[in-house]
């Protein structure tokens, strides 16, 4: 690594999804191995495990199977996070399981991703699970989707097979809101087009997977238009030096804030001006998502956690009745007219579920209107009424101010994730 080049590195978060045996763990192992992110002791450990299990090659998939149950069953049962870096970018991989009972993990892993890698077995083409993974990527608003057509070695690196699958996927995606789609033919096992360009597929002129990961434009993935600052914590030093200091700490959820900006505070509606944007290392001329800063205002008004500072001429929706797509996470079904706790930005409210409008068959994308029981791993559109107004944007506009989690008040478990539609 060149000296100080780390000061220009960007961060890309991506998730991987695939069906059982699509070679997802192998692909991640390959990315880590070919980018030289695997250490000798890790490699030795999996080499030994592979031998013990009587496998011929070193099984790179073993690198990502963290928990004992997974090693025993050979499947991934929880989101695992992996890290590697190239001189251009640092990568965070959310490795999510593919089988049906773990949809919730896929939703979890996708929620913070800039990019999703969806693996498709070249022998099987577009199958039910591919549809499901693509739909979830679209639902969670992941800006970039890369389809890796894997196991090309098992279809003789056939151009025809690749283009047939690409066509099918394009047709399917036309029904979804996916902004940027890419296709790469690979063999994770042999490393074709993962990090190094494959000699086996001269007909493919596109980028390798690694090239895409390093170069895809992520600068527009955050909303830099609508100014949203959920107040997380009020900083009051009450020291001699900073006697009257009252700062509002938080992470900017959208837009660009500058000192002198006219703002209003929700829910009170009071107007003020930004006096300073402070950090430990000094005050800033401007701040944008996802920076953590402390804002002071020119007027002394009562503001607490859960309030939101926004621009006067660009305000979020303020409403107690809203519709959201929810993914249900819990073995206990959603209770119609049931009451739940909600966390939305830095706000805690309660809600009642007024209506289940429909469920979605995530394999066909059809609406299910005759069965409205929302069970674990179901995705449904629901209407809720909250105890006090939320300040929100549509999820498709802002992933931070448009998302919420639903909590069972008796067990404190997170039972659902919601993406606000209106």
């Amino acid at each position, binding site marked *: 690594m060149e000296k100080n080049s*780390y*000061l*220009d*590195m*960007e*961060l890309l978060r991506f998730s991987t999804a695939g069906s059982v045996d699509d070679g997802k763990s192998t692909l991640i192992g390959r990315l880590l191995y070919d980018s030289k992110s695997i*250490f*000798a*002791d*890790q490699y030795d450990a999996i080499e030994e495990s592979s031998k013990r299990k009587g496998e011929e090659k070193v099984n790179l998939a073993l690198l990502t*199977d*963290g*928990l*004992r*149950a997974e090693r025993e069953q050979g499947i991934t*049962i*929880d*989101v*695992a*996070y992996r*890290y590697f*870096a190239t001189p251009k970018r*640092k990568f*965070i991989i959310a490795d999510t399981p593919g089988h049906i009972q773990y949809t*919730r993990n896929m*939703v*979890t892993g996708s*929620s*913070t991703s800039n990019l999703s890698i969806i693996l498709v077995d070249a022998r099987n083409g577009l199958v039910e699970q591919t549809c499901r993974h693509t739909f979830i990527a679209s639902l969670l608003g992941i800006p970039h989707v890369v389809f890796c057509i894997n196991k090309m070695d098992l279809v003789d690196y056939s151009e025809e097979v690749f283009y047939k699958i690409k066509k099918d996927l394009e047709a399917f995606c036309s029904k979804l809101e996916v902004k940027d789609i890419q296709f790469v033919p690979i063999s994770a096992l042999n490393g074709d087009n993962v990090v190094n360009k494959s000699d086996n597929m001269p007909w493919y002129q596109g980028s390798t997977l690694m090239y895409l990961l390093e170069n895809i434009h992520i*600068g527009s993935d955050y909303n*830099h238009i609508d100014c949203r600052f959920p107040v*997380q*914590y009020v*900083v*009051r*030093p*009450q*020291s001699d*030096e*900073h006697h009257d*200091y009252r700062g509002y*700490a938080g*992470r900017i959820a959208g837009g660009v804030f500058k000192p002198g900006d006219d703002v209003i505070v929700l829910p009170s509606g009071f107007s003020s001006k930004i006096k300073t944007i*402070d*950090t*430990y290392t000094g005050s800033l001329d401007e701040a944008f998502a996802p*920076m*953590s800063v402390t804002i002071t205002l020119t007027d002394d008004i009562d503001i607490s*956690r859960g309030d939101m500072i926004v621009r006067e001429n660009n305000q979020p929706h303020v409403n107690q009745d809203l519709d959201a797509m929810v993914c249900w996470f819990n073995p206990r079904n959603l209770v119609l007219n049931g009451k739940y*706790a909600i*966390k939305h930005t*830095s706000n805690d409210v309660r809600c009642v579920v007024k209506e289940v409008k429909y469920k979605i068959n995530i394999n066909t994308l059809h609406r299910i209107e005759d069965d409205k029981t929302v069970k674990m791993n179901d995705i449904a559109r629901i209407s809720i009424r909250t105890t006090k107004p939320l300040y929100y944007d549509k999820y498709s506009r802002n*992933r*931070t101010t448009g*998302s919420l*989690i639903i*909590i069972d008040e008796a067990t*404190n*478990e*997170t039972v659902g994730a919601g993406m606000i539609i209106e």
Partner: protein
Amino acid sequence: MKSYNLTHLQELESEAIYVLREVAAQFENPALLFSGGKDSIIVAHMARKAFWPARIPFPLVHVDTGHNFPETIEFRDKFVKELGATLVVGSVQKSIDEGKVVEEKGYNASRNALQTVTLLYTIENNKFDCAIGGARRDEEKARAKERFFSHRDEFGQWDPKNQRPELWNIFNGRKHIGEHFRVFPISNWTEMDVWQYILHEKIEIPSIYLSHERDVFIRDGVIMSVTDFIQQRDTEPTKKMIVRFRTIGDATCTGAVESDANTVEKIIEEVAAARTTERGTRSDDKRSEAAMEDRKKQGYF
């Protein structure tokens, strides 16, 4: 045209500060576990940034095995004083004296496992409802599945198969009485990120991270420091080597590496070229393939 992009270190810092503020807002009596190692140092450093100009609104807690490198304790006391924070010490020696744990015997005796008991007592006695730690997901495969907000039951146990889903940056810290949380603000950092951050922020670190001459002996291929706490076998002669430590834990289970990296810049070069993970020098992880997972389930950090 200005681009509104953060570097990876800025984004990681922003995320960690967000998590620390979330702890202060969601818990009544949190504490920051401070070992004097580089990871807890940067967490404490970012806590200072998160609440500035106010002081860090929670105490630092050190679980002291009594088997420390003297440099670490010296550093700890100086660091805490500069920070203006309160320090709470949980003593493993005291747990042994009180008969709560029994000391391991023999050549490979270590107080590492006993720390769990002392940690849980310290949490209970001080009624801490959240313990912030510097664990990172890249350290070990069981840690790769850890949440930022990790729930612990009334026995301090971790249930890896029944973790709360964690979405976006919304953290659910709700709990019943007697339960607590472990929170890991630098979950997404790697060893390299930590060193780059230390360099960039000019953060002071204990001297044993930097190369120095030391009396050591070799056990199972690991370079161990000569201390009063470890019994050396006759076949393990003392020799002088130029070494440094990649992690700082209990002196009985933390190995050194041969190195002439005597500045943070050189450490970064060394880490970039390293062929083993930093926990490769930790004998506590080598006891079995699931050693960390088993300890974590019981409440280890």
